[in-house]
């Protein structure tokens, strides 16, 4: 069920120099499956480095990244094929738009794959729909779009490659609450309807709690926690220890416990908290 395996992966920036930085330290992980996986960790925890190892932008200093059991660096000349199979959307991806029209820009990836014209056109249309962009925007210049539209066009550019695994680094960074919900909701829907394995890197606990099936917490280049939302948020003191914030609602549940009201340790969404409290007083379920 898993497609990617990281085997004893370490990554060191500036290896051999006096100021070398060990960004990842002996990581062993299985990733993939038809789920949404969230990577959390504060800046410098190694999560962005990990993203770049998955599609061969960076090469591990030691250890192996296996895709369907094969080392992606087995033949370094074929690393491009790996990048088509593991699609990565970088942080603030709107800055990668360059072509004359939105259509051409989204087609950049599929064109590099050497697909037929008809196939490319079909993929562009599908990708635009997945990303929630109007088809009428296809012939506009990407630089005429609004900020949110640009972000979605960039996302479509990666979806159009139909990767087996879609990796997104902070897809909602800098967006307002409505924009966050919109783009994360789109990604979740894309994951469900296409069955693609999606990996999201984010700082926002609230977002991760809402959209992810599995959460991996990184700290100081190592995997600190790995589990479902309720497993991870249930150990919220450990989250605080690795410098992460927990959803405000988790604090409320903790405070309630001090008042003798135990609604469980795995509280991470407001709706669940409300229904737990209401069930205590025999109220309606929501």
């Amino acid at each position, binding site marked *: 069920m898993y497609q990617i395996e990281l085997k004893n992966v370490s990554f060191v920036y500036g290896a051999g120099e006096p100021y070398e930085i060990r960004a990842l330290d002996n990581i062993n992980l299985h990733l993939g499956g038809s789920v949404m996986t969230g990577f959390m960790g504060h800046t410098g925890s190694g999560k962005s480095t990990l993203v770049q190892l998955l599609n061969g932008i960076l090469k591990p200093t030691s250890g192996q990244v296996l895709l369907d059991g094969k080392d992606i660096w087995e033949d370094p000349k074929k690393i491009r094929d790996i990048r088509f199979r593991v699609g990565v959307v970088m942080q603030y991806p709107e800055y990668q738009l360059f072509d004359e029209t939105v259509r051409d820009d989204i087609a950049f990836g599929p064109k590099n794959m050497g697909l037929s014209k008809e196939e490319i056109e079909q993929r562009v249309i599908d990708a635009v729909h997945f990303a929630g962009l109007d088809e009428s925007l296809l012939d506009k210049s990407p630089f005429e779009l609004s*900020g949110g539209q640009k972000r979605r066009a960039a996302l479509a550019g990666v979806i159009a490659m139909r990767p087996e695994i879609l990796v997104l680094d902070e897809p909602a960074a800098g967006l307002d609450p409505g924009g966050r919900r919109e783009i994360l909701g789109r990604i979740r829907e894309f994951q469900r309807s296409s069955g693609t394995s999606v990996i999201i890197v984010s700082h926002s606990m609230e977002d991760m709690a809402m959209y992810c099936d599995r959460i991996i917490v990184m700290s100081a280049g190592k995997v600190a926690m790995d589990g479902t939302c309720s497993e991870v948020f249930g150990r919220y003191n450990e989250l605080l220890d690795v410098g992460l914030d927990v959803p405000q609602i988790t604090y409320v549940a903790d405070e309630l416990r001090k008042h003798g009201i135990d609604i469980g340790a795995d509280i991470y969404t407001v709706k669940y908290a409300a229904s737990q*409290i209401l069930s205590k007083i025999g109220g309606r379920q929501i």
Partner: protein
Amino acid sequence: MGKIIEVKDLTFAYPTEDGEAARNALEHVNLSIEEGSFVAILGHNGSGKSTLAKMMSLVLVPDSGAVIIRGKNMSADDVTDEDVLKARRDVGMVFQNPDNQIVATIVEEDVAFGVENLGIPSEKIRHRVDEALRLVGMTKYARHMSHKLSGGQKQRVAIAGVIAMRRKCIIFDESTAMLDPVGRKEVMDTIVRLNREEGITVLHITHYMNEAMHADRVVVMDQGKVFMDGTPEEVFSQPEKLWDIRLDVPQTTELLYLLKQNGLNVRTDIFEPAECAAEIAEAMKRMTDVRGK
């Protein structure tokens, strides 16, 4: 306390390339900011909040209406460059992208940049720069390279640059939007401290609800108009109104609101998790007491 900034009947539309009439980014906005206050301006992207900030910092000129800074109408016809420069000595601005507002390679030289523009003697600049760096907690980094700092540190350097010019009012134009949670907290702590301890008027433009909770007053913008205006308690206790215009409320408020809707008699104007829990516990106790009888 006097009013440091007033805007009267402000209307503005961004010019379009093909000369078509664009939708107004601001429509008849009236607002006045008390000296020493902390005002948060909320709104989704395109609500007009950043345009308003650019008006108040005199980067943009309104189509109609007036921006009045410390009693001087800056939109009058006879306003000279000199007047604008004078007004800018009172009102400073910190922008969204930390990289695009730092001029110098070395931290302290960047903080000095604005003060140098005022034509103040060298020894006094030194003194002001040191003081400003101390106020934002960046003294240790005075001789560091600015591009190597974290996002939150860069924004604190930008803030130091503004306070070194001894301005009375700082407008933060989504200054926390590009930062990670750690950076955001650093910057918010600095902003709150400057307002409470140094009496600097703060106008904080943001779409993070949690940041608006620190303010004395919250102004919500939508479609170029002032949509709500009141204390954080007043504004956030009406979550439906905010959800309607694609904004959020703090999770605590959302929880209390949901509970109230389902028959638990709680106040909905609480943000602190501890207070929120206490309120819920009390309400639950009242309820079971009533049933017990």
